[in-house]
């Protein structure tokens, strides 16, 4: 009998450690394998038992359930992988997450790990770039820039030292994919960064993550030590004679540090103030040297591209959005969690069918996609397929693919005000449209709330200035939630809803 219990931060927050204690007491010498999360957060803490017929699931499990589960008195939910939420997914980036012990390198290899790195070691830098370009992978942090092109810029740059910087500063509300990978399959990120290093000639990597993620920091740091001991990292990567090493750095609670130039300043030990571009970080990044800055999910997707081939990856998707996207369904939702799927599934299907509607049982009013800088979509936009261009065409963005569901009690003017307030608190202060504009935005929304209808025009003007004049996405994209809320719910801003065109 093999027993698996999630130790993801979400499982811990829902009581997995008390379940682990009860299991250990009941099982005696039978070990419990602690794994990452399968991503079905509403079933956490999720317990799996394999009695030789495959892994069966129970969840959410309370400590008091353990004796009855072990005695066979509580029926399982069936085989874990046949639970519809999992069965409907295409798990490429998250293929091992929740399956293996995150810190067991042998299990990692047994499940396809390191195959990509081994293949990459036999390729030239140029061949690796071709593979990346053919995969169609675009930046999963939100900007959607082709990863292969970014890598090629760094590869072609001349410098004594280049860097791979992993942006793990996952501050967007509604997103937890980076956290889940770091806690559930850290070797995958390490392998992806090593491949990026080999391809571009960078020998040092940094994972810049958040102080709000203590579990992820601890697992990543331990995984790096283990990878170094096993020769995956260090002066002689898998016996190739080539070097790549990395370390984890922790931010200090500044949202803007998720912006890549601000992140680089923070990594250098400065205030996390945004830099003007150009120069591009690919040419003058960390310590003014050529630097790849990629999101966790972009880098953690690299191993499977090299393991299974670019064509396998690119076969999934829609239009110019190739491969899969780990959609994080969150907020007021019945079946919240991580759902990795090929691009192209409609927003409505994700929210209503996969997510099962709201947790409160009330009607869905709106969803915010892509974090605090993402647009609110009302139900009339639920047929939008998940893809970079498709969301852009509807006045939104997919960002880091977090979907936050709100029921009909949501106060949309309040949410628009919150977006401005958040921008005002988190603005780095470098550019005026963001620093001052966000404060004026809060004031203007207060005027609208007090019944000053003329202030709506001021608000839309202000949003135009912030969009066009801000240095980075914080000031530039804060208008998305504000204007989209105004557009979809004008009556909450004291406006008369115009007849449908």
């Amino acid at each position: 009998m093999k027993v698996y219990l999630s130790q993801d931060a979400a499982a811990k927050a829902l009581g997995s450690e008390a379940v682990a204690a009860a299991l250990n007491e009941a099982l005696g010498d039978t070990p419990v394998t602690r794994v990452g999360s399968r991503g079905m957060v509403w079933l956490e803490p999720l317990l799996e038992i394999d009695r030789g017929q495959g892994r069966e699931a129970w969840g959410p499990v309370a400590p008091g359930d353990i004796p009855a589960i072990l005695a066979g008195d509580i029926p399982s939910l069936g085989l874990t992988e046949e639970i519809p939420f999992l069965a409907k997914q295409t798990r490429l980036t998250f293929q091992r997450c929740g399956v293996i012990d995150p810190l067991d390198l042998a299990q990692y290899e047994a499940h396809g790990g390191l195959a990509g790195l081994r293949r990459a070691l036999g390729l030239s830098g140029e061949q690796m770039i071709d593979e990346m370009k053919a995969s169609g992978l675009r930046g999963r942090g939100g900007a959607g820039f082709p990863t292969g092109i970014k890598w090629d810029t760094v590869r072609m740059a001349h410098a004594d030292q280049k860097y791979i910087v992993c942006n793990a500063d996952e501050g967007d509300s509604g997103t937890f994919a980076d956290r889940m990978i770091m806690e559930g399959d850290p070797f995958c990120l390490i392998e992806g960064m090593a491949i990026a290093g080999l391809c571009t000639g960078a020998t040092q990597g940094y994972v810049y993550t958040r102080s709000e993620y203590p579990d992820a920091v601890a697992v990543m740091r331990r995984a790096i030590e283990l990878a170094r001991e096993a020769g995956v990292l260090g002066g002689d990567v898998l016996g190739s004679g080539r070097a790549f090493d990395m370390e984890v750095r922790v931010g200090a609670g500044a949202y803007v540090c998720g912006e890549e130039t601000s992140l680089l300043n923070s990594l250098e030990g400065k205030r996390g103030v945004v830099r003007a571009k150009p120069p591009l970080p690919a040419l003058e990044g960390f310590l003014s040297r050529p630097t790849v800055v990629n999101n966790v999910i972009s880098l953690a997707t690299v191993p499977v591209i090299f393991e299974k081939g670019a064509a396998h990856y690119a076969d999934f998707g829609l239009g110019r959005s190739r491969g899969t996207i780990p959609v994080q369904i969150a907020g007021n939702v019945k079946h919240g969690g991580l759902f990795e799927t090929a691009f192209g599934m409609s927003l409505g299907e994700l929210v209503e069918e996969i997510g099962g509607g709201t947790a409160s049982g009330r009607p869905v009013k709106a969803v915010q996609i892509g974090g605090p800088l993402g647009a609110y979509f009302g139900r009339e936009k639920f047929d939008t397929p998940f893809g970079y261009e498709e969301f852009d065409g509807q006045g939104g963005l997919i960002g880091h693919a977090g979907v936050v569901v709100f029921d009909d009690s949501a106060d949309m003017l309040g949410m628009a005000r919150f977006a401005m307030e958040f921008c005002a608190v988190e603005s780095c202060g470098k550019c005026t449209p963001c620093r001052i504009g966000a404060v004026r935005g809060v004031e203007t929304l207060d005027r609208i709330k007090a019944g000053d209808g003329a202030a709506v025009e001021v608000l839309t003007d202000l949003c135009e200035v912030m969009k066009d004049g801000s240095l980075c996405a914080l000031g530039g994209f804060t208008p998305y939630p504000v204007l989209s809320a105004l557009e979809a719910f004008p009556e909450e801003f004291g406006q008369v809803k115009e007849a449908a065109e």
Partner: protein
Amino acid sequence: MTSQPSIARDLPQVAEAEIRPLIDRHLSAEGPLLPMLHEIQAAFGFVPANAVPLLAEALNLTRAEVTGVISFYHDFRKAPAGRHVLKICRAEACQSMGAEALTARMLSLLGLEDHGTTADSRVTVEAVYCLGLCACAPAAMLDGQLIGRASVEGLEKALEGAA
């Protein structure tokens, strides 16, 4: 500008001999200031004012530059927090599940008007913007312990347990 009495004088200080090793440990790192500040705060619970000139000297920065970095980041404290720190997430996903009402209720139960520390220094309540627990909102963290689907009753119980 006229010189003002130093605010730093009223803040707790720590012996330099205790601070220096925490700085020295990271001197060879690339971009060492944040790791040093984290280490100092982990050791003392805050960044003592007299760490600033030591950091400035070690890194060849001005004291203004070091102070600027400390003040930029929400995490760094200039004075110790209460014995327990309760962080309640206020980001959108948690708001969709009632985080605002939860925060208001907890503050009122603890006799606080806004985020801050109780008069008996027992609890500091802070806002946090996302703990990555957005699918089990609202989320909170008491000292290092994560709490999903947080309720007033659940948080009260956790606080009682932390005494």
